[in-house]
């Protein structure tokens, strides 16, 4: 089987090591901040998969994150149990993305126009949700609450047992499981034909069409999948925060995920994950000081990365590592050749 360089491959050693670290982490630290970092990592992974591999840039991916959060809150208030709402928090963003995606991709809208449309969608949701303060804005028993959002809903529970809450440490482990499973799902997709067609679309959409692939359908499918993952991240965020406000749709939220993915590195899965975790953590640390606005520092960091390492940190590190390995192999080959020919090795002073 031909190995595709452009889609990478599963490194089980790293995966298992990372999983072990995440599983053991609660032994040494509080889980509140790590849970949030994992949720942001999942959100960044959803965008990184779509943008880095299919070349689809959504400026307003927070729309699906927010829809996931709101869907969970509204559904759990009405249903009173979290299993259905959890599934709905993925299904609703997926359906919305499928409709918007189909309209864009079958209508041959792409590139910057796609960015504008997705951004407008999230801003419309932000404006709308901010203006739902009155009693008239309720879905069943759930009042949307305008700018104050929806507070005090049930968090995740053991399926079928609403009284057995999974708040706290279990939420951390659910977030770990969600991130690892979504990562494996992305890896699986990239290893299959669909993933390779996706990369082909990123490289040359017209050629993929000329090969007989239904490009609009493929793009709609990956957009939908990405939205479902973002919705899951939104649901976990709602559970952790125990409140959902229109801020989940805000421009700030939309911009932050883009920065995480760019800095982490496009065209990798681990890049967006690490980008989200590291930058969010830096933001938390900066939030403890009042000397400089932390958005300013993140902005400067983005400019430095874009100018210095436009491909992102992780792809740059992978390049350096590969170069080191190539040189090492070359030196070993030269050493072996010298030994074979009986030439003494050159010692540098």
């Amino acid at each position, binding site marked *: 089987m031909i190995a595709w360089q452009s889609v990478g491959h599963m490194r089980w050693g790293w995966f298992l090591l990372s999983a072990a670290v995440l599983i053991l982490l609660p032994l040494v630290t509080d889980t509140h901040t790590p849970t949030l970092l994992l949720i942001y990592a999942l959100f960044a992974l959803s965008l990184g998969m779509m943008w880095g591999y299919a070349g689809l840039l959504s400026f307003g991916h927070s729309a699906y994150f927010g829809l996931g959060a709101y869907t969970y809150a509204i559904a759990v208030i009405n249903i009173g149990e979290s299993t259905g709402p959890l599934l709905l928090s993925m299904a609703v963003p997926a359906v919305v993305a499928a409709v918007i995606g189909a309209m864009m991709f079958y209508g041959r809208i792409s590139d910057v126009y796609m960015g504008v449309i997705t951004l407008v969608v999230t801003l419309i949701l932000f404006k709308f949700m901010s203006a739902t303060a009155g009693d008239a804005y309720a879905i069943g028993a759930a009042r949307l609450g305008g700018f104050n959002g929806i507070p005090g809903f049930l968090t995740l529970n053991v399926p079928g047992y609403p009284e057995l809450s999974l708040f706290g440490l279990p939420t951390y482990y659910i977030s770990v499981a969600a991130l690892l499973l979504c990562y494996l799902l992305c890896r699986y997709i990239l290893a299959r034909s669909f993933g390779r*067609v996706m990369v082909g679309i990123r490289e*040359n959409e017209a*050629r993929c*069409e000329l090969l007989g692939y239904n490009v609009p359908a493929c793009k709609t499918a990956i957009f939908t999948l990405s939205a479902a993952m973002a919705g899951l991240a939104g649901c976990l965020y709602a559970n952790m925060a125990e409140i959902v406000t229109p801020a989940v749709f805000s421009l700030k939220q939309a911009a932050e995920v883009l920065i995480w993915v760019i800095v982490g590195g496009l065209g990798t899965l681990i890049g967006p994950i690490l980008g989200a975790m590291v930058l969010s953590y830096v933001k938390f640390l900066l939030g403890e000081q009042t000397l400089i606005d932390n958005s300013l520092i993140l902005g400067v960091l983005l400019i430095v990365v874009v100018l210095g390492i436009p491909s992102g940190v992780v792809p740059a590190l992978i390049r350096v590592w590969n170069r080191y390995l190539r040189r090492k192999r070359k030196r070993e080959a030269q050493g072996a050749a010298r030994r074979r020919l009986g030439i003494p090795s050159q010692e540098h002073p």
Partner: protein
Amino acid sequence: MNSVVETHELTMRFGGVVAVNTVNFSLQERELRCLIGPNGAGKSTFFKCLTGQYRLSHENGRVLIRGTDVIGWSTHEVVRLGVGVKTQVPSVMNGLTVQENLWLSARRIHGWTGADGAVDEIAGELRLTDVLRRLAGELSHGQRQMVEIGVVLIQRPWLVLLDEPAAGMTGNEVERLIAVIRRINESASVIVVDHDMEFVRMLGSTVTVFHQGAILIEGPAVTVLDDPRVREVYIGNRAR
């Protein structure tokens, strides 16, 4: 003989400009046809109308591929009939290796397990074996042309449309290309759009000359290329 491609009164307008003007065209099974004409004659527009790259309605006329009316079809639907298309500017995936380019094309026809074998076979045939692991974007123009032809042929199409396949190729590459086109023509009908007269002469096929969006003349290469009307509208002093 059965027609593989037929157009009836095919017309394509861009605003007030008529790029293809009521063209009635027919291509038979296993026929090799060259479309020639000066720049702006409508060859490439006609080509794109055949392959669904322009969305047409029945107001634009009719396009039949093996008797199926493909007006309004998407490009991928036309291609799935068994049509292979090579575009004017080499259209390959520059960020992927040659092997990945060929595999992606082979996958649709030969399946997950058969794709690897098909890639090796076509790479050997087109002498691409040495560059299989190189990025397509790193290759010369001529090599990329050959990769694109490989990408087209690996799907075993019964109708092959080649838009300026010899552009940017060296003399040796052109000779190899002609041999490849003749071999394709053993099992498929072929339309070649080109304005390199020497290349068309070497192919020695039936030639259709386009001028101002319409067919000016059609016939064997030896007759058509020496026709005074063709010289006047297209070749000018260069052919004398």
